[in-house]
């Protein structure tokens, strides 16, 4: 009885907890892809406030841009004949897929991987109140984020010229779907966190789900290449509508998101049907809320407690010859490289964002190139040209790319343009120094050679971002039969361009490091990180502009002959690399050696 009273829900404490959770909670978001603010990087004063304001504005802007994009897509679909119900089905199906693939990690991040949770348990607040404050926070954040897909059916409604009550119905149906699928997710999450061993190893759990999210993001990138062609979206919408009309997919969707069972009533059932559909959807949401309450009341805090005590050690002694081997002497570059690599590979946020993304990027390009090639070939085949003939044609053209040919000049322009696009991933370099955070000031107390430190910071991301793509480029050059000297020239341009891009990005990151973060996720998520990704494009343009002008001087304006343009472009890249390396290992290294907290 006493226990029941102690665990009773209190509105007053619920409001206090919700405010604390909303304002000051720190998540141990190990992938950097969870939702929530994750606490802000430490900072004070006007600059920090302005930075936070800028971050919020940037995030709001990004949200509005994406939402507007979905609205326009919906409009286009409506104009292509897609019904509002099909558009709503597509957006809800996308929402459910996204939630299933990425939501479990986000739920765990918000509900369990919280530094302050252990402290809450020591306070005289009932566990039920804490649990509901956490759940309310998670559901509010999730549903808010999910609203980004809502404009898709609204755009479709506009195209059909439907009156406003239908707009309200669509919004209500969508919000109920969002709430229901998130409730379903947490219902699944609670027993997983109570009984799963994987979930109790934060690093492994984060790595697995981080990998899923990264692969999923790349898959969306690849898929969007095709969905946005022709009537791809319209076909997808009608496909989803078909799936929801019956059979196993409809049942699965009904379990994950019960309001989908009544969506057609809401949109196409007249006034009575709409009312009945909404009531049934609401009833489903209430049922899931009740089920969650019962499950979470039983297992949420047991899961939290299991997590608090989790963590294992190898217990193996390292001694004798093994100790001699694993502590053998190295130079400073090797020592720094090893330390940096281990940190990058072992911190799930860094592994997912910097290692996995870099390794998957070439795969992304290969898939796009193969798929695009296949589609292009289908069209050419329809025109009566066979694959061998087409290949011969392409190889014939590639064979003319000799040193001094205009074809090679344009190929080099292509490589430069591609390298500018690689600026999007140059934040791996930019974050090089910032990755060290507080450890940087520990290193400052050591007799560290800061040039060796920066060389090591350059090598890991350069190898990660350059070598896999280099292999693909070489394979493509050989397969296309580009003459060897020309192929070598293009490879040199690629290596020089990526090196210059990396050196400038790393130098900028060393000049303006962001070391005051509390957990790694703060570095890679939020508006600041997003802006940095786009800033990488500017860095790419800055580095490539001179070599590009040299090449265009021949290709566009014919003021240089091809040989001179090719030589000048390569020479400019070499000079840029040398100058940037000098800047990095001179002023940047000196600046780091004097940097204070």
């Amino acid at each position: 009885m006493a226990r029941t009273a102690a665990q009773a829900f209190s509105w007053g404490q619920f409001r206090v907890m919700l405010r604390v959770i909303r304002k000051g909670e720190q998540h141990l978001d190990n992938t950097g892809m969870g939702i929530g603010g994750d606490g802000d990087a430490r900072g004070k004063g006007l600059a920090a406030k302005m930075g936070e304001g800028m971050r919020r504005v940037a995030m709001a802007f990004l949200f509005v841009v994406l939402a507007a994009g979905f609205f326009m897509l919906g409009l286009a679909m409506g104009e292509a004949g897609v019904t509002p119900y099909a558009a709503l089905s597509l957006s809800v199906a996308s929402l459910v897929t996204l939630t299933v693939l990425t939501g479990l990690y986000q739920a765990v991040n918000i509900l369990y991987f919280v530094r302050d949770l252990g402290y809450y348990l020591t306070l005289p607040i009932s566990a039920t109140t804490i649990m509901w404050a956490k759940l309310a926070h998670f559901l509010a954040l999730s549903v808010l984020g999910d609203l980004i897909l809502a404009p898709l059916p609204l755009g479709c409604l506009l195209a059909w010229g439907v009156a406003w009550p239908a707009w309200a119905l669509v919004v209500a149906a969508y919000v109920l779907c969002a709430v229901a699928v998130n409730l379903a997710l947490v219902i699944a999450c609670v027993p997983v966190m109570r009984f799963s061993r994987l979930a109790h190893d934060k690093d492994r759990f984060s790595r697995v789900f981080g990998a899923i999210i990264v692969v999923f993001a790349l898959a969306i990138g690849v898929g969007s290449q095709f969905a946005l062609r022709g009537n791809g979206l319209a076909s997808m919408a009608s496909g989803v509508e078909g799936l929801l009309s019956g059979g196993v997919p409809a049942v699965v969707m009904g379990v994950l998101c019960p309001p989908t069972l009544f969506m057609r009533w809401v949109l196409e059932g007249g006034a009575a049907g709409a009312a009945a559909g909404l009531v049934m959807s609401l009833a489903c949401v209430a049922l899931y809320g009740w089920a969650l309450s019962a499950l979470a009341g039983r297992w949420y805090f047991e899961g939290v407690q299991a997590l608090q005590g989790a963590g294992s050690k190898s217990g193996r002694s390292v001694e004798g010859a093994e100790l001699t081997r694993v502590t053998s002497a190295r130079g400073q570059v090797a020592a720094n490289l090893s330390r940096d690599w281990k940190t990058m590979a072992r911190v799930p946020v860094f592994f997912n964002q910097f290692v996995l993304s870099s390794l998957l990027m070439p795969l992304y390009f290969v898939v796009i190139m193969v798929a695009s090639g296949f589609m292009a070939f289908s069209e050419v085949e329809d025109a009566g040209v066979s694959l061998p003939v087409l290949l011969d044609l392409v190889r014939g053209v590639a064979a003319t790319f000799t040193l001094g040919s205009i074809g090679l000049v344009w190929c080099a322009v292509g490589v430069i343009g591609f390298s500018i696009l690689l600026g999007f991933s140059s934040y791996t370099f930019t974050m090089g120094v910032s990755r060290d955070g507080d450890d940087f000031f520990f290193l400052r107390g050591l007799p560290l050679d800061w040039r060796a430190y920066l060389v090591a910071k350059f090598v890991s991301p350069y190898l990660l971002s350059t070598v896999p793509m280099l292999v693909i480029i070489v394979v493509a050059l050989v397969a296309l039969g580009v003459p060897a000297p020309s192929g070598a020239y293009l490879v040199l341009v690629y290596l020089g361009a990526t090196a210059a891009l990396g050196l400038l990005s790393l130098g900028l990151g060393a000049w303006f490091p962001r070391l005051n973060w509390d957990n790694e996720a703060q570095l890679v998520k939020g508006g600041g990180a997003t802006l940095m990704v786009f800033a990488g494009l500017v860095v790419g343009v800055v580095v490539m502009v001179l070599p590009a002008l040299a090449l265009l001087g021949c290709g566009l304006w014919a003021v240089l002959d091809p040989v001179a343009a090719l030589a000048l472009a390569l020479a400019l890249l070499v000079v840029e690399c040398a100058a940037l390396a000098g800047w990095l290992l001179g002023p940047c290294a000196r600046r780091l050696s004097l940097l204070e907290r």
Partner: protein
Amino acid sequence: MIRIDHVSKSYDGGATTAVRDLSLQIESGEIFGLLGPNGAGKSTLLNMLAGVLAPSSGTIELDGVDVAADPLAAKRGLCYVSDSPDHLLRLKGHEFLRFIADVYEVPAGVRSARIAELAREYGMEGELDNKIQSYSHGMRQKMMIMGALLPDPPIWILDEPMTGLDPKASWLLKQSMRRHADAGKTVLFSTHVLDVAEKVVDRVGVIAHGELLFVGTVAEMREHFKSNGSLEEMFLELTSENSPFALGEKDGGEPGGVEGDGSSAAPAAPPTSEGPDRSAGAPKPPEVR
């Protein structure tokens, strides 16, 4: 030997002063304990000695090497344990020690034997293959101390080194400090634990509001206070709001301006080429700041 000459450290363009015109000389073969309340400027001073912070004015020499002029050479001659042991947490114990050994260029022939010895002494043999992240606070502190002792440089600078250590490790560290000083090398450490200071140090310095209020042996401190009380009582009196030093600071006067018979604490003397006056009980003239 550590020589600190009129060193100040200020922030925000001089609006905040963490260390104010501090001068001190610590001889080789000496264990020097730095005492002070929270926010007194201890860690700032030790960070400047370790080259992590640059003084706003003044110079610091470690065994004759100017820290500002040749920071790398100065750092090779010292090891520094900061007040937080949470560093390089994703490395395993042996990886951390290897990194430190590489940076300090500890010869390959001796490093594994020294690591094995330190691990045995501090009871960490079974932990070297685990990530530092999985260690308890005390084990992390042990790992930081092992990392600091591994290169065995002539000067040890330790910021609150006993925090979190179990009694055995604490005793071991104190023994190591004594052995190091007896070998003619220098140990400077800060602590809040006055018992530790009383038992280990050759001389003690009391710092508050960024100023060195007293330098001398514990016996000298007792002599100045005419007290048989504990170091704790003397420390509290020295750093209290009613202390002449604190009053001077509060009133914007001369914080070190002790008048009269010198029965109060002896203010710190500036370094001289002969080193500090270590004669017991000799009151020094008040320093005008």
